[in-house]
């Protein structure tokens, strides 16, 4: 009974490895990114196979979707800046000094050795070894939600999740600080047909995103996946020029970025009283608090991911210096 | 029992705390700076006098402060320490007067005096260090504080000299660190104890103990300018005269010599050192240094370099006296610590006056200077004669005890060495005196009518020359260096 599945696993594993190699070796960068996106989707598939649908969703939406969009946008920018936008293929667009092939082979051999060591270590590790299974199932009733992954993300290890939202915040602050002035490269604009399509699809995506968020309490899904899907809305809005960030929006944008962090952290601290420590939600209100946090975090994630895609901080074009990025 | 247990600390702080104040003073606040300098130096002399009285009465001062588990920062005021403190405190006062006169219009005075007091603080700290760890701290501080003084002129030559100085002394400091660590690991203490702390180690692991001796003596030998670690001293003579005078006649080289005493007497103990067979080689090395320094001095035309090589030679008298392992020689060594300081500082200040007043920097230019600057040259002459060992001057007293000690220790070669050295001393000093007093200046036009030096330059060498006379003539008076020395030796030899 297992055999067809084993063959499927072997094929999928082989395809993933082949795509990984291909995305690093193919000459055309655009093709590399596309191969990478396929690689990400197949990895997500593998994770579904490993009964990790939440992870698969997150990888597909964020690890592959958002990352892919970011990569494509960057590629577009680089091709614009280097004046190779009109070329047929996107061969390497950043300057570099060639590395001697000897070095590459030495590195590859070194990594091969590491891989061998890691594989041996992996095979030596206990299979289906110890884990948190018992602890989680024991604590689940007190968590306030039904879906274990959500319980871990927003209750058991909520501190990690808060810090993860902080990482996103740090990223958007860093990106705003890195890219300054107005963009030299016009953002890639979608064609007319696509614009129309986007407008039709947008409400549907919003619905899907909200559903994912809501479903997170009982079934796979949750703030990050929902946020990613909502971010897709933002991406489409930006791409179709339905929304153009203006300097005046910066204040709102900042508030949207920090909203999730602030609420999450504030709730964590506010519940700490009467012998409870931070993040220790009172059992009666646990579900409500978790949903509140999730909802607001989702908004922040969506806004942040969209801003990461857009890149620079919207600033007013006052004089020439601004344009010259100084 | 002590009415002012923190007295040693105060003595240290009189120069340590004043240094940041001096740094912060604006360049043009010369009067205030001079006032602070002289006030603190006088205060220090007074405090040292008080401390001497107390110590003579048998009061024990011991300040401790734990820096690492079991490892203490420790200040003590034993008689040996006082010998060195008294010397540096007194000469600091005198040299401060001299420096004020010398640098009257020079640049960077705030910096100069700041580091100058820091040097004195380091010297006092070296003297009062109650263990090798504390000694190491101040030993390094002395290196750091003298470096800016050596390169005070700020030109390429002085920077080169400064670099060489830094390399020698910091390498020495690093070796001292190694030795201190080894002592700590071997003996479990770094305390200075009369009779030493290494008896059992020397019995069980003689090789390790011998190695440690070599390392420690080598480390402090750098500052004591023992051959072959002496090369920095003549090069460092590019420093201004007061620096050469106080630091390279007193503070730095004496810190090295003092370190040799502490190591031999109070880390190993003279008996242990002898039993390890390390004193004889040390005495031999000292002998070589004495002769080598004198020989090199003869050929130097630059006055300060000649004096520097003379210092190389003379400081090793102290090492010799320690290494002979005879109480009598030890008296000579300790007395020489003081006497040589007085003599050499006189000569350096006089040399500085010649350079300032007449522009005379070389022996060959000294013709007839005695008549133009009689006071300065009289002081110089007195010190030079004392160096040669003319009775009843100070140098004679120390050489006499050294010779006696040599006989006492059965090392008759010491007599020959001392005689030879005195002969060499005469060979390089007498021509200078001859030129100064008995030759007419070759090109009379070059000599200005009256040298332009103020009393602040003229008085200090004369004062120290008088002290040379007094220390020799009244060697047996109470509180004379010699008397104090006997007190110290009684402790070190545990008699």
């Amino acid at each position, binding site marked *: 009974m297992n055999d067809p599945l084993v063959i499927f696993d072997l094929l999928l594993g082989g395809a993933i490895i082949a795509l990984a190699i291909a995305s690093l070796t193919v000459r055309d960068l655009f093709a590399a990114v596309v191969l990478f996106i396929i690689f990400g989707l197949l990895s997500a598939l593998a994770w579904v196979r490993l009964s990790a649908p939440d992870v698969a969703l997150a*990888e597909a939406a964020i690890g592959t979707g958002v990352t892919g969009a970011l990569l494509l946008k960057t590629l577009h920018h680089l091709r614009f800046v280097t004046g190779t936008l009109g070329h047929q293929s996107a061969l390497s667009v950043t300057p570099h000094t060639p590395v001697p092939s000897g070095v590459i082979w030495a590195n590859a051999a070194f990594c091969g050795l590491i891989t061998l060591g890691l594989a041996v270590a992996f095979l030596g590790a206990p299979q289906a070894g110890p884990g948190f299974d018992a602890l989680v199932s024991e604590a689940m009733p007190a968590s306030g939600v039904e879906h274990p992954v959500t319980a871990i993300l927003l209750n058991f290890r909520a501190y990690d999740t808060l810090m993860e939202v902080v990482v*996103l915040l740090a990223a958007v602050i860093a990106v705003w600080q890195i890219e300054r002035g107005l963009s030299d490269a016009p953002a890639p604009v979608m064609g007319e047909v696509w614009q129309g399509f986007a407008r039709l699809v947008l409400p549907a995506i919003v619905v899907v995103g909200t559903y994912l968020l809501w479903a997170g309490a009982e079934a796979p899904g949750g703030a990050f996946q929902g946020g990613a899907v909502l971010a897709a809305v933002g991406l489409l809005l930006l791409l179709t020029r339905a929304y153009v960030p203006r300097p005046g929006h910066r204040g709102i944008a900042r508030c949207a970025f920090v909203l999730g962090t602030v609420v999450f952290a504030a709730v964590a601290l506010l519940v700490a009283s009467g012998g409870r420590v931070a993040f220790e939600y009172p059992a009666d209100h646990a579900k409500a608090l978790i949903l509140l946090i999730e909802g607001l975090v989702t908004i922040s994630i969506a806004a942040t991911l969209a801003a990461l895609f857009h890149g620079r901080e919207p600033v007013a074009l006052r004089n020439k210096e601004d344009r010259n990025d100084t | 029992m002590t009415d002012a247990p923190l007295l040693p600390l105060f003595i240290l702080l009189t120069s340590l705390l004043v240094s940041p104040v001096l740094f912060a003073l604006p360049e043009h606040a010369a009067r205030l700076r001079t006032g602070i300098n002289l006030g603190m130096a006088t205060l220090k002399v007074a405090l040292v006098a008080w401390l001497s009285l107390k110590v003579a009465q048998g009061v024990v001062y011991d300040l401790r402060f734990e820096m690492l588990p079991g490892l203490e920062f420790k200040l003590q005021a034993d008689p040996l320490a006082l010998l060195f403190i008294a010397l540096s405190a007194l000469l600091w006062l005198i040299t401060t007067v001299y420096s004020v006169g010398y640098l009257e219009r020079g640049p960077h005075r705030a910096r100069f005096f700041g580091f100058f007091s820091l040097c004195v603080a380091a010297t006092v700290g070296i003297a009062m260090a109650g263990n090798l760890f504390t000694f190491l701290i101040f030993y390094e501080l002395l290196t750091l504080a003298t470096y800016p003084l050596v390169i005070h002129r700020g030109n390429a030559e002085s920077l080169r000299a400064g670099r060489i100085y830094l390399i020698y002394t910091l390498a020495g400091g690093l070796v001292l660190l190694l030795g201190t660590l080894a002592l700590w690991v071997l003996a479990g203490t770094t305390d200075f104890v009369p009779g030493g702390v290494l008896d059992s180690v020397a019995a069980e692991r003689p090789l390790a103990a011998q190695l440690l001796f070599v390392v420690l003596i080598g480390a402090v030998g750098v500052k004591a300018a023992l051959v072959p670690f002496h090369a920095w001293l003549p090069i460092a003579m590019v420093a201004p005269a007061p620096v050469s005078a106080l630091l390279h006649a007193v503070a730095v080289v004496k810190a090295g010599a003092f370190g040799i005493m502490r190591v031999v007497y109070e880390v190993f103990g003279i008996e242990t050192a002898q039993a390890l067979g390390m004193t004889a080689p040390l005495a031999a090395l000292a002998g070589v240094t004495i002769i080598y320094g004198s020989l090199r001095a003869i050929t130097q035309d630059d006055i300060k370099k000649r004096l520097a090589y003379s210092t190389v030679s003379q400081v090793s008298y102290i090492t010799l006296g320690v290494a002979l392992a005879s109480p009598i020689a030890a008296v000579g060594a300790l007395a020489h610590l003081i006497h040589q300081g007085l003599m050499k500082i006189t000569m350096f200040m006089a040399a500085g006056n010649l350079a300032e007043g007449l522009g005379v920097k070389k022996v060959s230019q000294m013709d007839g200077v005695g008549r133009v600057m009689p006071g300065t040259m009289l002081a110089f002459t007195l010190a030079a004669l004392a160096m040669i060992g003319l009775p009843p001057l100070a140098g004679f007293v120390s050489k006499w005890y050294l010779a006696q000690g040599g006989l006492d220790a059965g090392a008759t070669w010491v007599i020959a060495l001392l005689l030879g050295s005195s002969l060499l001393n005469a060979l390089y000093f007498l021509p200078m005196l001859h030129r100064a007093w008995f030759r007419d200046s070759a090109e009379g036009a070059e000599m200005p009518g009256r040298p332009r030096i103020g009393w602040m330059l003229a008085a200090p060498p004369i004062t120290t020359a008088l002290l040379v006379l007094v220390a020799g003539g009244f060697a047996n008076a109470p509180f004379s260096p010699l008397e104090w020395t006997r007190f110290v030796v009684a402790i070190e030899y545990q008699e």
Partner: protein
Amino acid sequence: MTPDLIYGLTGIAVFAIGLVGALCAQDRLRRVLALKLCSVGAGFLLVVGAWRTPPMAPDPVPHALVITGIVVMVSATAVALALIRRLQTLESSDDDD
């Protein structure tokens, strides 16, 4: 041959490929891609560790960790890409330092 074995080795292979890429890739963008491969490899390892032979449910904790890892990685990627874009702009303009 169980899935955890197959995908575990797949993950390690992907990680290693990413490592080679991160060390050797000359193009800046491709280096980011390589790093992303590494992160997927690490994700595989954790997901595989969480896997239990059905009908047992997998351990949910590593799943949460991988989700966190994915979000962290997208943040880092965004910053790296922003740096790449900025650097390219600076290098293309002649009048900068």
